[in-house]
C-alpha cells in the first residue's frame, strides 16, 4: 500500500510541473496588460512602466516562470496585483469558504443521491426507477446558474425566506452562515446528487447480480437485510471513489454558483482575477486547486484499494 502511494506521488510530480507551466503560459498569452488593466482611469505611462519593472513583467518569460516557481517552492505564491495581499493569504482566506460550500453540497448530494440510487436499483425497471432516472438526468441538465437565479428570484425576492447572497464565516454566526450557504449548496448538490445516484444505481445493480447475494437470498435472508448489509457494503467502493472525485471537482468547480450568490470562495476569486488580469492570483489559485484535485484523486484510489480487499494485495 505504501509503495503504491509513493509511486502515485512520484507520478504526480511531472503532472504538477506541467500544470504550473501550463497555467503560467496561459496567463502570459492573455491579451490585456495587467498593469494597464488595473490602472483603470489612472493611466500615467511613467507610473505604469515603473510598475511593470517592479513586478518584473518586462523580464523574459522563462525568467518570470523560474522566479515564480522558485517562490512557490519556498511557500511564496506572490502578491495580488490588485490589492497587494499575498496570494497565500488569499488562498487561506477562501479555503474555509470553499470547503464549507463543498461539504454542504456534498451532504445534500449524498442524502439525495445514494438512497435514490439504491431504490432505483432495487426496483429496477419499475416506475420508481424510471422517475429517479429522469429526475437525475434533469438535475444534470439544468444550468446551475439559471437555477441559482431562479432560486434567488423565488426564495429571496418573492418569498423573502433566505438572504439572496453574501457570506458569514461559520465561526462568526453559524446560523446565518448556514442560511446564506444553503441555496448555493442546494444548487450544487442537486447536480451532484444526479451523478451520485447514477453511479450508486449501477454499482448496486452490479452487486445485486453477484453470486453471493443470490446465495444470501437463497438462504432466506430478508430483502432489506440483504440490501443494506451485503449489497450496499460492496457497492460502497465505487460510490466512495466517485464521491472523492466529485468533492475534488467541487473545490474549484463552483465558479458560476459562487459568482451568482457572491460567495467569496475560490471560484469567484479565479474569475475575478482572470478578468482583472491579476496574474499571481490566477496562477496561485489554479495551482492550489489542481494540487487539491490530484490529492483527492489519489485519495480516491487509495480508498478504492483499501475498501476492495481483492485489490489490496496487488502492488
Amino acid at each position, binding site marked *: 500500500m505504501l509503495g503504491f502511494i509513493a509511486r502515485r506521488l512520484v507520478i504526480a510530480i511531472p*503532472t504538477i510541473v506541467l500544470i504550473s507551466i501550463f497555467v503560467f503560459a496561459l496567463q502570459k498569452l*492573455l491579451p490585456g496588460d495587467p498593469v494597464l488593466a488595473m490602472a483603470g482611469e489612472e493611466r500615467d505611462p511613467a507610473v505604469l512602466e515603473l510598475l511593470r519593472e517592479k513586478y518584473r513583467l518586462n523580464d523574459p518569460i522563462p525568467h518570470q516562470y523560474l522566479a515564480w516557481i522558485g517562490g512557490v517552492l519556498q511557500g511564496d505564491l506572490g502578491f495580488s496585483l490588485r490589492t497587494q495581499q499575498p496570494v497565500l493569504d488569499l488562498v487561506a482566506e477562501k479555503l474555509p469558504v470553499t470547503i464549507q460550500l463543498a461539504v454542504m453540497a456534498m451532504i445534500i448530494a449524498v442524502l439525495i443521491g445514494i438512497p435514490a440510487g439504491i431504490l432505483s436499483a432495487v426496483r429496477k425497471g419499475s416506475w420508481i426507477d424510471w422517475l429517479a432516472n429522469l429526475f437525475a438526468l434533469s438535475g444534470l441538465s439544468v444550468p446551475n446558474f439559471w437555477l441559482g437565479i431562479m432560486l434567488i428570484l423565488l426564495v429571496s425576492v418573492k418569498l423573502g425566506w433566505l438572504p439572496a447572497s453574501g457570506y458569514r464565516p461559520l465561526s462568526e454566526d453559524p446560523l446565518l452562515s448556514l442560511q446564506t450557504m444553503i441555496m448555493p449548496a442546494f444548487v450544487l448538490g442537486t447536480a451532484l446528487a444526479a451523478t451520485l445516484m447514477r453511479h450508486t444505481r449501477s454499482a448496486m445493480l452490479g452487486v445485486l447480480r453477484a453470486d453471493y447475494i443470490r446465495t444470501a437470498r437463497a438462504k432466506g435472508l430478508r430483502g432489506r437485510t440483504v440490501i443494506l448489509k451485503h449489497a450496499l457494503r460492496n457497492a460502497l467502493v465505487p460510490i466512495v471513489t466517485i464521491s472523492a472525485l466529485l468533492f475534488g471537482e467541487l473545490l474549484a468547480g463552483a465558479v458560476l454558483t459562487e459568482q451568482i450568490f457572491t460567495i467569496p470562495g475560490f471560484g469567484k476569486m479565479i474569475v475575478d482575477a482572470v478578468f482583472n488580469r491579476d496574474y499571481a492570483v490566477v496562477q496561485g489559485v489554479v495551482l492550489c486547486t489542481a494540487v487539491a484535485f490530484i490529492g483527492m484523486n489519489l485519495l480516491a484510489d487509495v480508498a478504492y484499494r483499501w475498501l476492495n480487499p481483492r485489490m489490496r494485495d496487488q502492488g
Partner: protein
Amino acid sequence: MTDATLAAPAAPRSPSRAWAKLRANPVALLGAALVLFFVAVAALAPVLPVPDPTATDWGAVRKAPSAAHLFGTDEIGRDVLSRMIWGAQASLLAGVVSVGIAVAIGVPLGIAAGYWGGWTDAAISRVTEALLAVPFLILAIALAAFLGPSLTNAMIAIGLSAMPIFIRLARGQTMSVMTEDYVEGARAIGLGHGAIIGRYVLPNIFPPILVQATLTIATAIIAEASLSFLGLGQQPPSPSWGSMLNVAKNFLEQAPWMALWPGIAIFLVVLGFNLLGDGLRDALDPREL
C-alpha cells in the same frame, strides 16, 4: 462532467440489436425527439415565419408575452421567440462543434497513447492528467478570455477543455482492444499499424466514444451558456441562449420571461442529449445493467 469511462470495454452488440434495443426504450426516444425538435427548429430558423431576431422596436421594450410577441420582447424591443429560434443554432453549433474538436484531437491522441504505450503513452497521459486537474469551466474561461469573446472562440475553448476525457476514453479502450487475441493474431501475421487501428481498434472504440460524445454535447451546451453568461460567448446582436440569460439577469423582476425561456430551452435540449446518450449506452453496452 458525465463520465462513461467507468464502463469496461467489451465486444459491442451488433448494430441491429442495439438499434432494436434503443427503439424499445421510451426514455431514449423522448431524448431523441427533443434533440430532433431543436435541430429542426435551428435548421428551419431562416424559413420560419418569425420577425428578424435583430429588429429593434423602441415602442415595445420588455413587453410581456402577447399575441404579437408570443414569448414577449427583450431589452431593446426584439422578439424573444425569434431570438430563441435563432439562438438554437448557436447553442447546438456550440455543442456539436466543440465536441467535434474534442473528438478530432482527443481520439487520435488517445489511440496513439494506447497503441504505442511507453513514452508516447507517458507523455500524453501526463498532459491529459494536467489538463484534467484544471477544472473544466475555469480552463474554458481562461481560454475564452485569451482568445477573445466570440462564439467561435468559445467553441474552441470548450473543445480543448473537453478533450482530455476523450483522450482518456480512447486510450483505455485501445489498450483493452490490444490485449484481445484477434489483435495479437493480426500483429503476428504482420498487419500494419494503420490496418490494425482501422480494422480492429476504431470499430471497437466507436460505441463508447459515441455515447461519451452525446453526453459531452450536453455538457458543452451548458458550458457555452455559462461562457455567454459571463460575456465570453456569442456576442450581440446575434442571439444565443446563454447571452440572452446574461442580459436577462438584469431584468428578473421587470421581465422574468427573458430569463425563463432560454433557461427552459437549455434544460430541454441538454436533457434530450442526456436521455439519448443514456439510451445509447444502454443499447450499446452488452452488460445489460
